[in-house]
């Protein structure tokens, strides 16, 4: 029998899941999500075509900026993923090995999934299911490790910039029944000390744009 704490935890998880389902349904229905923060109403919405074009233009600018940045010796500060992988290899960090392990996990997972699909034994089913989940966890760990190593790559920097710039365009607050951008300049958002509203907006944007 479950104790009171376990029941409370289960209940909290259920409530959270219902909240997430409601939020998701709202986003799916009209590509917008509203949220409250410090007695104000905010929303994140799908960017318009004009905004998407602006994001693309800004991404190109950012890429040029990163490509041109050099240190005092004239060496490029930002490198492409492929270049970074080579640099790491010189230092003895084999990112290729991480990638190979990840590919191996995918093959193993597929094999186990095909067994899981046709098994009728409850115990085998649980065993296979747990093995698949363990492999998926390991895959996620490796993906995170790889992402950490490559976080400063040009590709990653542009991706991050693109997400933040999108947020700047689509994060709005309600002022007298009108929706206005929260920040008038991108720099204002980046330098803002109120990171809570940015984090919340980011959370919903990632879902809306299906990044996560």
């Amino acid at each position, binding site marked *: 029998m479950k104790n009171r704490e376990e029941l409370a935890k289960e209940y909290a998880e259920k409530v959270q899941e219902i909240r997430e389902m409601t939020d998701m349904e709202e986003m*799916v229905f*009209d590509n917008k999500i509203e949220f409250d923060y410090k007695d104000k109403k905010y929303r994140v919405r*799908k960017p318009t*075509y004009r905004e998407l074009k602006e994001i693309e233009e800004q991404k190109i600018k950012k890429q040029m900026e990163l490509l041109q940045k050099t240190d005092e010796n004239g060496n490029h500060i930002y490198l492409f993923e492929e270049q970074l992988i080579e640099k790491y290899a010189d230092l003895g960090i084999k990112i290729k090995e991480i990638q190979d392990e990840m590919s191996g996990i995918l093959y193993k997972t597929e094999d186990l999934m095909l067994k899981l699909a046709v098994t009728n034994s409850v115990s085998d089913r649980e*065993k296979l299911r747990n093995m698949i989940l363990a492999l998926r966890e390991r895959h996620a760990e490796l993906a995170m490790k790889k992402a950490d190593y490559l976080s400063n790559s040009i590709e990653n920097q542009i991706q991050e910039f693109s997400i933040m710039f999108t947020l700047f365009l689509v994060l709005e607050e309600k002022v007298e029944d009108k929706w206005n951008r929260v920040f008038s300049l991108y720099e204002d958002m980046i330098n803002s000390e109120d990171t809570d509203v940015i984090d919340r907006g980011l959370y919903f944007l990632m879902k*809306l*744009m299906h990044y996560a």
Partner: protein
Amino acid sequence: MPKKKYKPNILRKLARSDKWQFLYSRAKEIGSIELFKNKNEFSELQIEFMRWLQVYNSLYVDLAMKEPHITEEVIEDDILCDAYLLWRSKKKDENKTGSQKDASEVTGIPSVRFK
């Protein structure tokens, strides 16, 4: 062995819900039911959601047709569901390859596959 916990995919959960499956079926039959507020310019999220609506619709059809290895539990569990979908797609590929092979054996003409 205790069942390992994982966080279910909320978009998939929504897509397999009775409400959305009902709306999807009616929209397919009648055509005039709109699933979203916008009629075009669908977002990535909406496209992914439509994909899952279609996938779960096909799974409920399999269940109704009493296809092997599909149960309510399979539909409700993302891992079991992924496993079934993979197995189903492999089986379809095998059947396709098999029927192509049969045809070439009958006609004596080698089959050509365009990729």
